[in-house]
C-alpha cells in the first residue's frame, strides 16, 4: 500500500502545475547490505497522473530514480476544485493512489 504521496496542484492562466512528492524506497537491486547479500530491487515502474478521468501524464520509472522521488509537471486546463489523481505501481505489484484538489 505504501506511504501517502504529497500532491499540490495550482491552476494559473489555464495551466495547472502539479507537484508530487512520492514516498518510496526505490531500491535498485544492485546494493549489498552489511552482510554482503544483495538488497532486493524495489522500485516504481509506472506512474500515471489523471485530471478527473483524463490521463495527463504517464511515465515509466526505473531503478535509476532516487528514493522518495519529486516530480513536477504542467498540463493545459484544470480549474479550482477539480481533482488530480496520481497512481504508481512498483515491481513488487504494490500500488498506491492519492488525489488532491486543484487550487
Amino acid at each position, binding site marked *: 500500500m505504501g506511504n501517502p504521496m*504529497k500532491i*499540490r496542484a495550482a491552476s494559473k492562466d489555464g495551466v495547472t502545475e502539479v*507537484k508530487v*512528492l512520492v514516498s518510496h524506497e526505490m531500491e535498485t537491486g544492485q546494493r549489498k547490505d552489511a552482510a554482503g547479500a544483495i538488497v532486493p530491487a524495489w522500485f516504481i515502474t509506472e506512474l500515471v497522473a489523471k485530471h478527473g478521468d483524463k490521463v495527463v501524464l504517464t511515465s515509466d520509472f526505473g531503478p535509476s530514480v532516487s*528514493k*522518495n522521488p*519529486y516530480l513536477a509537471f504542467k498540463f493545459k486546463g484544470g480549474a479550482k476544485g477539480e481533482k488530480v489523481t496520481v497512481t504508481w505501481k512498483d515491481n513488487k505489484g504494490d500500488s498506491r493512489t492519492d488525489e488532491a484538489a486543484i487550487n
Partner: protein
Amino acid sequence: MFRFSKTILVFALFSASTAAFAIDKYQGVGRQATPAEVKAWDIDVRPDFKGLPKGSGNVERGNELFEEKCASCHGSFGESNEVFTPLAGGTTKDDIKAGNVKGLSSGELPQRTTFTKVATISTVFDYIQRAMPWTAPKSLKADEVYAILAYLLNLQEIVPADFVLSDKNIADVQKLLPNRNGMTTDHGMWPGAPAKKGGIGNGGKPDTANKACMKNCKPEVLIGSTLPDYARTAHGELRDQNRSFGPVRGTQTLGPEAAKKAADAGTLDLATKSGCMACHGMKSKIVGPGYSEVVARYQGQTDAESRLIAKVKAGGQGVWGSIPMPPNGHLKDEDITTLVKWILSGSK
C-alpha cells in the same frame, strides 16, 4: 542569543534604578535605549518558550503562506536541495517515539534535514520569525510564523493535516520532535558552568589540547600556502571590508579598480538595503547571476534597461536556471531604475 538577552534584561532592570549611570560615565555618548527599542530588539524565543508571542496558525494557512513566500527557494514540500539543504524528511515514526533520529548515527541518511537535527521547536520558531523570508526578514506576523511552522510539522508527519499550532500547545509538539533527545551539552562549545557546578556544559573545556612544544620545535612560522591570484578578488576589495581602525586592514585585492568601487558605494548600499546582495554577487553567481554576468548577457541590447527594470519589479524565472527571482514591488521605481543602470554600467 541566550546570553545576550539575559544581559540586556539585567541591564534594563539595573538601569531603571540608576538611569543616569551610563550617561554620567560617558559624557555626551549615546542615550538609554527606550523600552520600545529594547522590545523591538528582544525577539528571541527560548527552549522554555520564554519570549514566545501569543498566536496560532493552522496547517492549511501555513501551506498557502509557504507556497507564497517560502516554496520558491525551499520547494513546495521543503524538499528542495538546490540552494539549501532540505527542511523536511529523513525521520521515521520510531524516531518520533524515541526522540532520537536513528539515521543520523547509523549513516542511513544520505543527507541531514532541518527536522533530523533540530532538538527544540523554539529554535525553528525563532529562526523563521527572525530571518525568513530571506529577502524580507522579520516581515512575518506571529500568526503566520505559527501557520508556517504547523505546515512544516505536518510535512514532517509530526502533526495531522487539521492541526492548529498555538502558544498553548507548542510545548506538546516539543514532546514529539524527532531529535528532541539528540542535543548534547557536554562539550566546550556550550557556555557556562560545568555540570558538576550546576551548569549544563563542561565549563568551556576545549575538545583538543594545545600543548606547548618543548623539543624539536619549528624555529619559525612558514606560510605554507596563500590564496592563488585568481581567487584573491573572489570577495571584492578586502581592505574596504575591514573596519577603518585597529591593526587589521585586510589585503588590497582589487588595485586601481578600488577607486571606482568607492564611487559606486552609494548604489551598492542601496542594493544591499534592497536585499539584492542576498542572492546576487558582483562577479559571480550566488543564488542568482552575478552582475558582471548580467552585463555580459545583455551587452549591446538597446532595450536591456527597460526589460531588466520590468524583470526586477515582477520577478522572473528560467533565464538563469530554475531558481526564481522574487518580485520586488516594494521597491521604489526610481530605486529600481538606479540599480539597473548601475548594474548595466558595470557596477563593481
